[in-house]
């Protein structure tokens, strides 16, 4: 069935387009049944890829190699700088090199379970299948993954997995994978198949007759607003974790591209699914600009504890063993410090809220390496985590070899995003979303080392196939000319928006409002949510948004590099998103993965799902600025994995 054009509200059919058949053969069979564009016809198609992180760079490079004419856009000064570069820990793949019982099926199973049964089985299975190709591809590109003494690739166990399936490159896996994808992209730029537009920010997508036909960008240096047309538009613009203001995301990460697509009809799915990472360095003062992640791999050797008595004033070293509460080891003897992220984060919040927090602001818990250093020696620990320890010391001025680290959860990853079908196409024909920007294969919670896998799977091995199926039907159609009214009206709209920001002449900076918004979102739509807090957010956010639009001060002009101006538009979109997050969280009357509703917990304080009523994706449809979005659902069925309550005891 054809997806319904976005212009017909209330008749929305959410068809995931998942083919029928046994799951293990689905993708293989589907690849055969899809339409192909023959090699000499590919150059007749123009494809826009927005974003050059792992997902976008791998997609643009692969589409270019295939012969499509690609235009790639990034607001960074170089594709090498995308947020993907900061990923530390590693990338999963079902290679089973260690021979410890891993398989495609097990990675599939673990991912569905880890996502708390809120993802689409068929997509996750495909992800697990192509995971092995990613490692081959990256290695061939020269990505220097860790190796053992025989020269073969090394693996480690990561984030609660019971097999060693994580490939890593020191603590810089994202950097090395991105540099691999970037080099593949630059090869295509040199070959002339990809036209690269740096420092260009997408400010709107353009539709004609219900189909995506291009985008409009603003050149961040000259301020020029330019329309671009294509046969298909791919959004690979990352996640929205910066809605919290403080997060581990890079400073420039934002929701604008996805949000503007949403405003043009693309459904936004599961916005309330956000991941709060348990091991970040706590904020040290009021003008903290971002939080730094300490790789999760530290939990393999570090022990997490807080003082048993609240409001403890002694230094860590002066607190005897008997007066320490190793709360994860106590509550979850089987997994101990390696419980999944959501469980670790929530437990940290519980102990800190109960007054057991440590550090000057009492906003952290200890991550202690003393036992590991005693067992393995300082050299062994330094070899494993040296760069992380150095990073910690640089930021805090404290030496983690001699006193325990302090950590606290922070916004890290967003599972929600643009709704896509099995082809990674949004409900708007011709518009795709890949990487963290889509609502993803991670359900309600992403497992460690699985985002890099998903971004590269989408970009190298899924989208390049599925996009052909749709494009094949357009052979002979030319792109919509950029002087068509569908483009010119959008260009005018953006120019008007820009002048509005510059003439508001209020009294507070964009950052001021972003920080305030972030605080509201963190307090009410953070690690634990309840009806009262969500209702509070739903009244506070619009009030602050109104103040923002009235009182923001953006100085300078539009025809030069103007960072406040750039941020104003991004923060405006965060306001709208935050409100939708609250509504989504309110309507989802269950706890699952990263979405913990305090009203829905087991007697032991664990997340309690409601599979009868909420085993679905919630996808929201924009109805204009002053009308609430409509909630649509895609039912999820589980034929291959039995639903169970997660237990890490």
């Amino acid at each position: 069935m054809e997806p319904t054009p976005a212009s017909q509200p209330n008749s929305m059919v959410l068809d995931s387009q998942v083919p029928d058949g046994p799951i293990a053969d689905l993708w293989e069979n589907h690849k055969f049944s899809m339409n192909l564009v023959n090699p000499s016809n590919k150059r007749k198609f123009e494809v826009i890829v927005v974003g050059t992180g792992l997902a976008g760079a791998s997609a643009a490079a692969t589409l270019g190699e295939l012969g499509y004419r690609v235009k790639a856009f990034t607001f960074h000064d170089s594709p090498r700088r995308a947020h993907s570069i900061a990923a530390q820990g590693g990338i999963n793949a079902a290679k089973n090199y260690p021979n410890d019982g891993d398989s495609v099926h097990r990675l599939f199973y673990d991912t569905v379970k880890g996502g708390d049964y809120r993802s689409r089985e068929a997509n996750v299975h495909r992800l697990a299948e192509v995971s092995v190709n990613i490692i081959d591809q990256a290695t061939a590109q020269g990505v220097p993954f860790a190796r053992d003494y025989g020269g073969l690739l090394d693996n480690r166990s990561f984030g609660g997995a019971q097999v060693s399936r994580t490939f890593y490159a020191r603590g810089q896996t994202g950097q090395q994978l991105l540099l691999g994808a970037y080099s593949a992209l630059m090869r295509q730029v040199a070959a002339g198949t990809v036209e690269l537009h740096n420092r260009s920010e997408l400010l709107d997508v353009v539709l004609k007759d219900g189909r995506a036909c291009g985008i409009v960008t603003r050149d961040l240096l000259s301020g020029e607003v330019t329309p671009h047309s294509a046969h298909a538009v791919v959004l690979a613009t990352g996640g929205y974790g910066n809605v919290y203001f403080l997060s581990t995301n890079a400073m420039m990460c934002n929701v604008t591209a996805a949000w503007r697509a949403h405003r043009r009809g693309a459904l936004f799915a599961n916005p309330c699914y956000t991941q709060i990472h348990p091991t970040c360095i706590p904020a040290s003062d009021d003008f903290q600009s971002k939080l730094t992640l300490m790789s999760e791999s530290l939990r393999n050797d570090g022990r997490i504890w807080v003082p048993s008595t609240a409001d403890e004033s002694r230094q860590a070293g002066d607190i005897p063993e008997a007066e320490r509460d190793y709360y994860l080891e106590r509550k979850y003897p089987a997994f101990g410090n390696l419980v999944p992220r959501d469980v670790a984060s929530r437990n940290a919040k519980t102990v800190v809220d109960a007054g057991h927090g440590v550090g000057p602001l009492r906003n952290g818990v200890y991550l202690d390496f003393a036992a590991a250093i005693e067992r393995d020696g300082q050299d062994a620990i330094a070899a494993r985590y040296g760069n992380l320890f150095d990073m910690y010391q640089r930021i805090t001025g404290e030496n983690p070899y001699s006193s325990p680290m302090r950590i606290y959860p922070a916004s890290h990853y967003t599972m929600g995003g643009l709704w896509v079908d099995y082809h990674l196409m949004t409900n708007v024909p011709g518009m795709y979303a890949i990487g963290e920007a889509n609502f993803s294969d991670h359900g309600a919670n992403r497992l460690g080392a699985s985002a890099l896998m998903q971004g590269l799977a989408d970009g190298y091995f899924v989208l390049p196939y599925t996009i052909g199926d749709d494009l094949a039907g357009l052979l002979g159609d030319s792109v919509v000319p950029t002087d068509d009214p569908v483009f010119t009206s959008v260009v005018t709209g953006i120019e008007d928006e820009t002048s509005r920001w510059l003439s508001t002449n209020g009294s507070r900076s964009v950052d001021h409002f972003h920080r305030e918004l972030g605080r509201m979102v963190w307090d009410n739509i953070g690690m634990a949510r309840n009806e009262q807090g969500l209702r509070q957010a739903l009244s506070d956010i619009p009030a602050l948004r109104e103040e923002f639009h009235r009182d923001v001060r953006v100085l300078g002009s539009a025809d030069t590099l103007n960072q406040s101006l750039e941020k104003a538009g991004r923060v405006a979109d965060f306001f709208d998103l935050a409100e939708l997050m609250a509504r989504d969280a309110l309507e989802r009357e269950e706890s699952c993965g990263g979405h913990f509703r305090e009203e829905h917990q087991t007697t032991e304080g664990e997340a309690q799902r409601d599979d009868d009523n909420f085993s679905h994706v919630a996808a929201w449809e924009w109805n204009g600025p002053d009308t609430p979005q409509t909630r649509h659902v895609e039912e999820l069925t589980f034929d291959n994995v039995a639903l169970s309550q997660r237990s890490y005891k």
Partner: protein
Amino acid sequence: MSDTISVTIRVWRQDGPDTPGRFETHPQQITTDASFLEMLDLLNEQLNDRGEEPIVFESDCREGICGTCGVMINGRAHGPQRATATCQLHMREFADGDEIVIEPFRAAGFPIIRDLAIDRSPLDHIIESGGYISVGSGAAPDANLTPVPREAAERAFDAAACIGCGACVAACPNSAAQLFTSAKVGHMALLPQGQPERWSRTEAMVEVMESYFGPCTNHGECHEACPKEISLDFIAYLNRDYVKAKVKNRALSGQR
């Protein structure tokens, strides 16, 4: 321990690539727990409140890995702390009463865009000319088909750790980009996967580099400024490979 210190900021302001620049002076009080860029954030907040345009400076990851940040601090690229990018520098490296002079990276190859922001796109052009291994998506053999000696992989990593910040160029009296280029060439030349294109890659990258940047005369300032401590040895390897590339009969290079 956090303290509050008073410092005097002297910062370069320049409205556009072709307009003359000037220094502006601002007193600043700041806790030593703040990062250097948070100190600038705070200053920008104050400027905005006073109706003056904020200082343009770039940053993204603020974790020392993306290479977006980078300014001259008291004449040193990325400031006083060894192996530390600007975004990772903290105010505890400064003392009460210090004057801190902040300027953009200056090099002919890096035109100033505005205030502290510069254009480093020539570094991308060097990569574009050959900083890759040509392997199409899906064409790769099993990753464990080619074992790589651990030492070789580690050494390749040391080079691959370059973040493309351009501090090496800014620190060099000749504005040379040898350290950056040699890091990419070295990373690939050390791996078996990089061998087929080794000679053509080296030649192409060096030639594009020379079209934007000055000559290397072995000052070593680049290494001192490099936040990833990329070794000068890679420049030696680069020079060696470049000479070899000129004489190598590539038709015979498949022989062992």
